[in-house]
């Protein structure tokens, strides 16, 4: 039985990964999950210098979802390399840093350094964080800026380059196609969906940045639809994410066309959910007599 999947030349032992921003740097999650058993760990969006994140309220529950405005709080490149990466490697995790620079130059610098760092399996370029003033989603909503960044990032990255796409555009698949054309090895879809909450007591937006990113089961149908559309337009692998809360949710993404999936918000709720999904995948494959998980990828299109 084969549960392994390929992201470019990288082989993941199974398709279950944990999403950037919901797994920290693996330290806290390792109390609940054996990091070595995961397909990969996508670490918190990284910048060259440490970032404190946004002021004011940062998170609030919505119906079956969560709105967040964390603002890419992270330890910065230096501390990541010195403290966080060694921990992850000591746990035998497959490490994929998420790169979230403010500017094209900062992203390129991060791509260069990280792709030459031993122990890093691939990079995920974040062009879709809605919670920062500069960078983030600004790169992921305009196809020309997106293409410009991609061309440079591809050149700067020695190894595997994954691009995390924003759902906050008309045609996500067009961005996926552009990523493929510029030589990305895979795309992750989707990042959070733009949302907003009004605090009815103060009669003002709840978050200081007004809009925030919606995640969790509430966005799963949107994410599945987008993965399905991307699959029809590109040949590179898709890492599907958006509200996966259980094994059946994960299967939907795979059948829609995802080669791998990421658990995001549900790590916050049930930190062992990724482990549960891995266990259930094997049971399911035995029961359904599936020899290779790749047989299921995109099966909903056939």
């Amino acid at each position: 039985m084969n549960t392994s999947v390929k992201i470019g030349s990288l082989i993941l032992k199974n398709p279950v990964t944990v999403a950037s921003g919901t797994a920290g740097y693996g330290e806290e999650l390792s109390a609940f999950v054996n990091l070595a058993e995961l397909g990969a760990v996508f670490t918190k969006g990284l910048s060259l210098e440490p970032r404190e994140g946004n002021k004011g309220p940062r998170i609030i529950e919505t119906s079956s979802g969560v709105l967040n405005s964390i603002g890419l709080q992270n330890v910065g490149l230096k501390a990541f390399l010195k403290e966080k990466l060694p921990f992850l490697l000591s746990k035998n995790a497959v490490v994929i840093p998420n790169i979230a620079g403010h500017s094209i130059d900062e992203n390129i610098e991060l791509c260069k350094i990280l792709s030459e760092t031993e122990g890093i399996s691939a990079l995920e370029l974040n062009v879709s964080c809605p919670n920062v003033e500069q960078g983030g989603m600004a790169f992921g909503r305009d196809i020309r800026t997106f293409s410009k960044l991609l061309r440079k990032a591809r050149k700067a990255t020695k190894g595997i380059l994954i691009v995390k796409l924003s759902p906050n555009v008309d045609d996500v698949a067009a961005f996926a196609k552009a990523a493929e054309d510029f030589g990305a090895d895979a795309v992750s879809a989707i990042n959070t969906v733009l949302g907003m909450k009004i605090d009815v007591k103060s009669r003002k937006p709840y978050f200081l940045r007004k809009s925030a990113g919606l995640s969790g089961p509430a966005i799963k149908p949107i994410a599945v639809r987008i993965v399905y559309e991307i699959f029809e337009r590109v040949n590179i692998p898709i890492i599907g994410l958006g509200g996966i809360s259980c094994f059946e949710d994960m299967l939907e993404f795979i059948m829609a066309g995802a080669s791998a999936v990421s658990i995001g918000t549900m790590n916050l709720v049930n930190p062992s959910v990724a482990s549960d999904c891995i266990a259930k995948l094997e049971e399911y494959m035995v029961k359904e007599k599936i020899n290779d998980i790749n047989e299921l990828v995109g099966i909903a299109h056939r």
Partner: protein
Amino acid sequence: MATLIDKPLEVCKDHYLLKIDIGISLSHPGQFANIKIGKNDPLLRRPFSIFDHKENIIEIIFKVVGKGTEILKNICKAGYLDVIAPLGQGFSITENKNTLLIGGGVGNAPLYYLAKQLKAKNNIVNYLYAARSKDYIFFEDKYRLISNTFYLATDDGSGGRKGTACDISGELAGGSGYDIVYTCGPAIMMAGIVRIFQNPDTRIEVSLENYFGCGIGLCSGCAVETNAGIKRACVDGPAFDGRVIDWGSLLQ
């Protein structure tokens, strides 16, 4: 695997007691339990401080404030409950000291467990129990019994003295010689307490109750500004040195 021992018991207006077997006999006063209610809606766990802990059973007192606690209060039978506990950093436990504990409303809950442990370590426990009114006071007798000196205050004077936690603290602070003050309650109350006890020889510990996303340090949603940078209330706290907190940012 945790088990709810009995259905929720009403202990005063809007407040309920839960007894949960968590299979772990050790926790620290000020730590919390993170409880999953329903499947995807409500989605996030709800954190509750530990009111008492005997053998493998923790007790929690919660106040009904919204959808999650409304569902929790209506659980009608004992059985499996999805609980992660104990979590977070609790209060420090001193020895042979003169202590003052100040609880506001449901914020009194973790201070009972704290008072018990302080008592066991030969501290003098002075307790100020503040509540909105008489109807919102739970287990007054238990608090009275555990304390060397017990003060009761309600905003409207319907139980104990009339006044807020800060009003009474203002009187207690003068020449009292407390070595350490522990407080848990609304942020505005704790900010007031920190202002009132100005003597730097008196240590102040607070337990924050800001909005938690995950409760296990993954999301950084419960970030608190302190004089040592951003901290996560769920894993760096909920108990903190009250003087390191940037109260202005919490009260915005």
